[in-house]
C-alpha cells in the first residue's frame, strides 16, 4: 500500500496540487491527512469530523498556495484552540505567458524559470517561435495571442503573469485585449512611453475602457536602468513580484520596517 509520504512525494514530483495536514499540537501529535484538490484524502488526524473540516480548509488554501497553522476544537470546531494543524500546500506552479519570440523573451523565460514559473512562449511567426530558440521554456506555441488566451485564459489567476514583448500592434493589441478579461495578476507590455501612447489609442478604439488600461504595466518593469535583455528581464520579474506582494518597490535600504 502506498504510504502518505510516497503519495505526497509523487504528487509534488508530478506537479499535482496536494496539501499535507499534520497535527502539531493535540492528543496525537504527528497524525497526518493528505488532501488532493479533488477532495480525495489519505490518512486521518484522529476523527472524521476534524478530517472533513481540515480537508475543506486545505482545498481553499491550495488555490491560494499558502501554508499555515490552523487551530480547531476536537471535532474540528472553528474558534477553538485545542488542536493545532499545520497545513502545507503545494499549489500548481504559477504561469508566465510571454507573447513575442524576441531576444528579450529568452532572458525573461530564463528568469521566469528561476522563479519557479511554468513558462509559455507564444508567437504567430513559426520561424521565431521554435524550441531551439527557447529551450528553457516549458512550451513554445505557434499561434495568435487571442487564440492562445481563448484556450488558457480561464486558467490564469492572481499568481500568474502575462508579458507582451512583441512591440508590434498586430500582436500586442490582441494579446492585451485577450488578457484583460482574465484574472491574471500581472499584465505588462514592452515599449517606450511613445509606443505605449499609440498603443493606448488603439486599445481605446478597440473598446478597452480607461480603467481596464490601468492594469497594463507599460513601459514594462521597474525603473532600475536596465538596458540589456537580461537586465530588462530582472526589472520585469521584480515588478511581477512587487505587484503580487503589493509593494511599491523602492530600495530596501531606503525604507523602514520588516523586510519580509
Amino acid at each position, binding site marked *: 500500500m502506498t*504510504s*502518505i*509520504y510516497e503519495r505526497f*512525494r509523487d504528487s*509534488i*514530483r508530478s506537479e499535482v496540487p496536494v496539501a499535507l495536514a*499534520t497535527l*502539531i*499540537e493535540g492528543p496525537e*501529535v*504527528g497524525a*497526518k491527512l493528505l488532501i488532493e484538490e479533488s477532495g480525495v484524502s489519505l*490518512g486521518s488526524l484522529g476523527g472524521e469530523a476534524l478530517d472533513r473540516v481540515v480537508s475543506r480548509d486545505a482545498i481553499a488554501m491550495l488555490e491560494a498556495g*499558502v*501554508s*499555515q*497553522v490552523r487551530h480547531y476544537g476536537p471535532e474540528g470546531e472553528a474558534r477553538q484552540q485545542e488542536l493545532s494543524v*499545520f497545513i*502545507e*500546500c*503545494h499549489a500548481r506552479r504559477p504561469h508566465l505567458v510571454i507573447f513575442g519570440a524576441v531576444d528579450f523573451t529568452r532572458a525573461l523565460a530564463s528568469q521566469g524559470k528561476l522563479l519557479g514559473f511554468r513558462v509559455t512562449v507564444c508567437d504567430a511567426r513559426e520561424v521565431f517561435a521554435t524550441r531551439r530558440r527557447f529551450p528553457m521554456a516549458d512550451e513554445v506555441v505557434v499561434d495568435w495571442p487571442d487564440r492562445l488566451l481563448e484556450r488558457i485564459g480561464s486558467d490564469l489567476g492572481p499568481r500568474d503573469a502575462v508579458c507582451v514583448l512583441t512591440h508590434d500592434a498586430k500582436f500586442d493589441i490582441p494579446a492585451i485585449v485577450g488578457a484583460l478579461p482574465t484574472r491574471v495578476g500581472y499584465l505588462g507590455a514592452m515599449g517606450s512611453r511613445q509606443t505605449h501612447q499609440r498603443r493606448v489609442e488603439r486599445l481605446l478604439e478597440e473598446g478597452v475602457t480607461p480603467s481596464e488600461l490601468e492594469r497594463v504595466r507599460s513601459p514594462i518593469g521597474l525603473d532600475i536602468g536596465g538596458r540589456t535583455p537580461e537586465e530588462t528581464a530582472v526589472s520585469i520579474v521584480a515588478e511581477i513580484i512587487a505587484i503580487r506582494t503589493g509593494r511599491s518597490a523602492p530600495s530596501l535600504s531606503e525604507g523602514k520596517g*520588516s*523586510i*519580509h
Partner: protein
Amino acid sequence: MDEIFDDIERWFASGEKVAIARVVDIEGSGPRDPGAAMAVNARGEVAGSVSGGCVEGAVVGEAIELLEGRRKAGITSFGYSDDEAFAVGLTCGGTIHLFIEELDW
C-alpha cells in the same frame, strides 16, 4: 520540498532512519516561509534548509536526539540570538517555529 526527496530516497534505500523539520510558523522577519523543510539522517547528513543557515546546526542536533529516541516529535522554536531564552537564534530578529518528527509515515 522537491529538492530533498532525492536524498531522502537514497537514505531510505540504505535502510537509514530520517527526521524531517518543517517551518510551520514565523513571527517577524524569517528567511524561509512555512513549508520550508530540512531532512536529517542519524549520521547528521542534511538535505534542504529551514533558515538562511542560522539554525540548521541546532536542528541537526534536535533531529539526531529524535532519531535516537531522546526527544519526541514536536514544535521547537528559535528566536533572536540575544534573547536568553534561545541558545541559538536568527540574526534577523524574528522567531521561527519548526515541527520536527521522524519521517515514518
